[in-house]
């Protein structure tokens, strides 16, 4: 089965690859996954005083689907409020990228990365972190 075109697209033209200053109060950093599992995603958001995500950056160690999932996540995050960002569901990513069943866990990790970044931002700004509801084993 060949690589999906959309997945290839994100690899050849990745959006938002990079790093934000993780020490800044307006930046939330989510680092999820583990090298032993073959998947590590770092997703960062820059949030303004109106709770709007003005910038998002990612870096991912993982397969093509993992890279595409996190790249897509950063695309979707930009311009959303933090509350809107929480509604991003992994199945939206699966649908958009046409991920096969064996790659669904990549989208779950991307959703975790989003929530983890949001939580980091919240904790830095004196707010309580949300519960990461889904477990994915």
């Amino acid at each position, binding site marked *: 089965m060949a690589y999906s075109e959309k997945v290839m697209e994100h690899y050849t033209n990745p959006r938002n690859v990079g790093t934000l200053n993780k020490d800044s109060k307006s930046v939330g950093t989510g*680092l999820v996954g583990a*090298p032993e599992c*073959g998947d590590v995603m770092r997703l960062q958001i820059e949030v303004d005083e109106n709770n709007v995500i003005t910038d998002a950056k990612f870096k991912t160690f993982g397969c093509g689907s993992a890279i595409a999932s996190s790249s897509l996540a950063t695309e979707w995050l930009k311009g959303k409020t933090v509350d809107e960002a929480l509604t991003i569901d992994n199945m939206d990513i699966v649908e958009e990228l046409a991920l096969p069943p064996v790659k669904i866990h990549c989208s779950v990790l991307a959703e975790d990365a989003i929530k983890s970044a949001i939580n980091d931002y919240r904790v830095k700004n004196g707010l309580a972190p949300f519960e990461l509801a889904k477990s994915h084993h």
Partner: protein
Amino acid sequence: MITVGDLFTYLCVLRIINHNMELPIYLDNNATTPLDPRVLEAMLPYFTNKFGNAASRNHAFGWVAEEAVDYAREQVGKLIGCTEKEIIFTSGATEADNLGIKGVFEMYKEKGNHIITATTEHKAVLDTCKHLEKSGAKVTYLKVQSDGLINLQELEAAMTPETILVTIMYGNNEIGVVQPIKEIAAIAHKHGALFMTDATQAVGKIPVNVNEDGIDLMAFSAHKMYGPKGVGVLYVRRKNPRVKVTAQIDGGGHERGMRSGTLNVPGIVGLGKACELCYLEMDQEAARLSALRDKLESSLSQMEESYVNGNTAHRLPHVANISFKYVEGEGLMMAMKDLAVSSGSACTSASLEPSYVLKSLGLSDDLAHSSIRFGLGRFTTEEEIDYAIENTKKAVNHLRDLSPLWEMFKEGIDLSKIEWAEH
């Protein structure tokens, strides 16, 4: 009317004048190899006008087919140093492994039930052993050293009076490591056990001689040596000692009662021709391939944080297995889209487990995930290798730009100290 001869000539000429590389470049010859055009030419008549069943005793169609099969036995025998009567044709190396291991276990039941093998064997051997454990076999899975070689003292220590079979592969399909076969066979024989080897990756690539190497049973397959898929050999020794195996497929008693079923005549003819070509061309080919492999490997291992897996002194001439730290194998293969290679990454296996062979070497999971296997072959050119080097370097660098682990490594962060969010 265009004949096969014309087609053959056309293909040869095409190869000579075709300066343009065909993309993607095939560097996965450990998975399978293309048919050598000369093998195809030898096989074709047996699909068309020489279509007889080799077991048809009573007419020319059968005699012609039988003659072709007998000739193929000679060609195989010449390559591996055995007689025609010691060859059982099967549907491939997997079936040959099954027949050898199960066949010996059942035949020598009175003598003992202990089998010794290694953790880096092909699944055809490992799964067969696991199956036999349910029927009362006791199996020892020897661990290998970090370079992939068996420790001979450990093998010696594992032998028991109940050991009937030691089965260790000649050359490993993932890392190319070649085991000390003569020494292993000697230890097996010293303790009264038979020695079997799955030599699928080695036959036709390096000199394999069943008598010089002390081999009692040997499995190999045509499609790793420029022959067709669906045909292989189990060599079964007839002298010093005379070895027997219990048939696993019944139905007519073909192959001296050891493997029933109408012979795949065109496949066998192809296998024979493939063996003959290897016999004639093996030495030059091995020299040519190891030079190309060394060029590929030394260029790529100049990259920062790259690791060659497996013993480099004792290995097959055409294999290179390299880990590129901080990038993941499947992502890397996607990035190397003009190259056909394979990886030990979990993402490429249906089970989502990283390569068990690399894990047996003691490789960490993340390095196993970051490995790429290059398998060069008869039709690999220097131009293709040069392209592969550039393409791989570009892909690794691009993915490192995307990798948070590479960034952290560059900043001097000790990744082993991090508490990862998963598991």
